[in-house]
């Protein structure tokens, strides 16, 4: 047997990693960095849940609490969720799945990681310097005139990390357009590619608006003049419009790649083709586009015009339709399949369930009259955690398990994988389902203290968070363990159809020994096995 150098054995020094142009190594760099930020954001969440176990503000001060939820939001949104699937798995898999040697711009790819790290350093510096207490939403005029925390430093961090997102998005778009293997037409692309492509479009179109909006906040804070200042004829709601123009599509930046992952895993473990491939692809593009038209539903009680509220509400219902299509199609993919319940499949099934609940409760928030009561309460907190944690994080972990053999060349311990998936599913529901009830009963979000009648539900939630923490620490442990002691992985342990499985695990530096040629559509699984 000829031993080929794979990408992991292509140099063991730190330097060989930090100067690499190999998309697979850059993906690993991203994985390390976002894992660190995940646990930083998770630590803040732990403190929040501990504080909320009792109605009194007895663990930390009000200011500290405000800084904790701000850190949790900023870190989890910009330093974990947004780069999670696109920058780690997108980076690793997009070239492999389309039969390319690398991303279109390898140097730019590495640069975007350094930009990410730089943005991270600014944010961490802001934390060390005393933190920031505006919430991740930076609403004016609180952020521009009233808080005395390190707003400018954090804004700089988010601004910089935004450029990392833009560069990654640019790279993925050009790669998908220009580097597909011979025979790989658009409707032969795996849905994971569709999803990352659509995500990249959003990254390119939405992120710059956030970047400039935050610059305007920083300038207003710095100069005392700005377009959001009502004393100078400006409008604080202008900030909200600009902010949500980015931040609503940002939700789709987080969930679309997760949908892409589910669309890979479910057909593979149901051993049949995905139901309604074209509808799935169109739904992805539909979500990406419609997602830009609904931001005003964050502003139904903000003093926005009632009529604008109605326009945004109707558009918000429209964006729910492609999401519904995807859920129905995943379910239909199980029909007449031959289902194996391996760990990635458990994550994917859990994802479908949690995403369904998150999506359906989204309808409540799109309904104008209900949103008046529910917005800025724990109902909203529960809703977006079902989408972002139940959706994106579950699927990020599912993807890590599914492609772990490809990434690391080792198998993870299957039984532990299943236990972790179940633990996460249960812990997640215990943590966040009570928050729907809390919201309906009227507990506002970002509250350091709360009326005593809410304690029971908060206790459930905090207990669930403990279970959830175990669920996150488990994979960290056994995936790390498997790097050294795991069984060596074959090229295609799951019998999957994607191009990435046709090259050894881990892949060689240039991905493929010879240029693959595609002759059929994706998910051509044998019906019965």
């Amino acid at each position, binding site marked *: 047997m000829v031993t080929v150098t794979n990408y992991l054995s292509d140099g063991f020094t730190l330097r060989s990693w930090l100067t690499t142009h190999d998309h697979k190594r850059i993906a690993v760099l991203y994985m390390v960095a976002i894992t660190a930020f995940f646990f930083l954001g998770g630590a803040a969440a732990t403190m929040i849940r501990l504080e909320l176990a009792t109605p009194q503000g007895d663990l930390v001060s009000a200011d500290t609490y405000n800084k904790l939820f701000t850190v949790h939001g900023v870190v989890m949104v910009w330093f974990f969720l947004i780069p999670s699937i696109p920058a780690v798995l997108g980076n690793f898999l997009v070239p492999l799945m389309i039969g390319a040697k690398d991303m279109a711009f390898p140097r730019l790819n590495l640069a975007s990681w350094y930009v990410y790290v730089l943005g991270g350093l600014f944010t961490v510096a802001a934390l060390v310097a005393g933190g920031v207490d505006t919430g991740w939403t930076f609403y004016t005029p609180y952020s521009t005139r009233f808080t005395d925390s390190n707003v400018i430093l954090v804004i700089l961090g988010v601004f910089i990390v935004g450029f990392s997102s833009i560069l990654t998005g*640019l790279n993925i778009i050009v790669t998908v*357009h*220009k580097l597909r293997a011979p025979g790989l037409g658009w409707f032969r692309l795996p849905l994971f590619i569709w999803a990352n492509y659509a995500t990249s479009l959003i990254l*390119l179109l939405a992120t710059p608006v956030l970047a400039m909006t935050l610059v305007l906040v920083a300038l207003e804070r710095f100069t005392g003049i700005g377009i959001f200042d009502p004393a100078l004829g*400006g409008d604080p709601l202008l900030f909200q419009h600009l902010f949500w123009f980015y931040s609503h599509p940002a939700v789709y930046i987080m969930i679309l790649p997760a949908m892409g992952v589910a669309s890979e895993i479910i057909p593979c473990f149901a051993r049949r083709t995905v139901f309604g491939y074209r509808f799935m692809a169109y739904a992805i593009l539909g979500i990406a586009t419609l997602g830009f038209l609904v931001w005003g539903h964050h502003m139904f009680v903000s003093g926005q015009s009632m009529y604008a509220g109605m326009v945004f509400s109707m558009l918000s219902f429209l964006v729910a339709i492609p999401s519904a299509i995807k859920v129905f199609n995943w379910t239909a993919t199980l029909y007449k399949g031959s289902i194996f319940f391996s760990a990635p499949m458990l994550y994917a099934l859990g994802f479908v369930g949690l995403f369904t609940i998150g999506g359906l409760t989204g309808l409540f928030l799109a309904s104008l009259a209900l949103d008046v009561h529910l917005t800025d309460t724990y109902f909203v907190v529960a809703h977006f955690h079902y989408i972002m944690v139940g959706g994106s994080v579950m699927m990020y972990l599912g993807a890590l398990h599914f492609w772990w053999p490809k990434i690391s060349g080792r198998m993870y311990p299957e039984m532990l994988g299943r236990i972790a998936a179940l633990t996460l599913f249960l812990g997640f529901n215990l943590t966040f389902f009570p928050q729907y009830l809390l919201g309906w009963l009227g507990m506002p979000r970002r509250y350091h203290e709360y009326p005593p009648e809410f304690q029971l539900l908060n206790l459930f939630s905090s207990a669930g968070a403990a279970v959830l923490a175990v669920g996150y620490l488990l994979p960290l442990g056994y995936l790390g363990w498997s790097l050294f002691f795991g069984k060596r992985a074959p090229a295609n342990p799951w019998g999957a159809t994607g191009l990435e499985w046709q090259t050894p695990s881990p892949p060689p530096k240039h991905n493929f020994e010879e240029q693959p040629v595609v002759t059929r559509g994706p998910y051509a699984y044998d019906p019965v096995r």
Partner: protein
Amino acid sequence: MPTIPFDSRLERREAALLAMWAFLVTEALFFGPLFFGYVHGRIANPAAFVSASHPMHVVLGTLNTALLMTSSLTMALAVRGAQQGKAIRLWLALTALLGLAFLGIKASEYWMESSEVAKASGAELTFYFLYFAMTGLHALHLTIGIGVVAWLWRHAARFGREYHAPVEVSGLYWHFVDVVWVFLYPMFYLLERYNA
């Protein structure tokens, strides 16, 4: 050395052009909030915006517009020269010089306007805020553009009929910066001039 993922220079050029256009779309949206802020400010405070714009030096602004559009011409000629394998240094040098002249005039305007800003109040301040933010960001882009053109000038010998993607891509960027100015000029210089 990074893996070169492309099979040919032609493919690479196409990828570079797509990437630059995608980047320019991002840039357009980057300017978006500023333009939107301007539209909102002007509709909410029309009188203040007019009175704040009158001290602007319309002659210098018009001259600068002309300079920048001429630089776009020279840049376009440089790009065509590179595509046809001709010498492009002259065109690049002219482009960069016109850009520098623009920046020089802009800087002198900033100098002269500072006293007006000190007198401003209310929404006039918003006007000046937007003026400095937008023209400042534009000047930053132009400075980067001049740097890129200088880099092209240094490596001009490498470009020819076979390989000229960097010149084309830089040209796109240069023209985009020009397009931004085309909108900034009437927004800040030409408000109710007849009353000035």
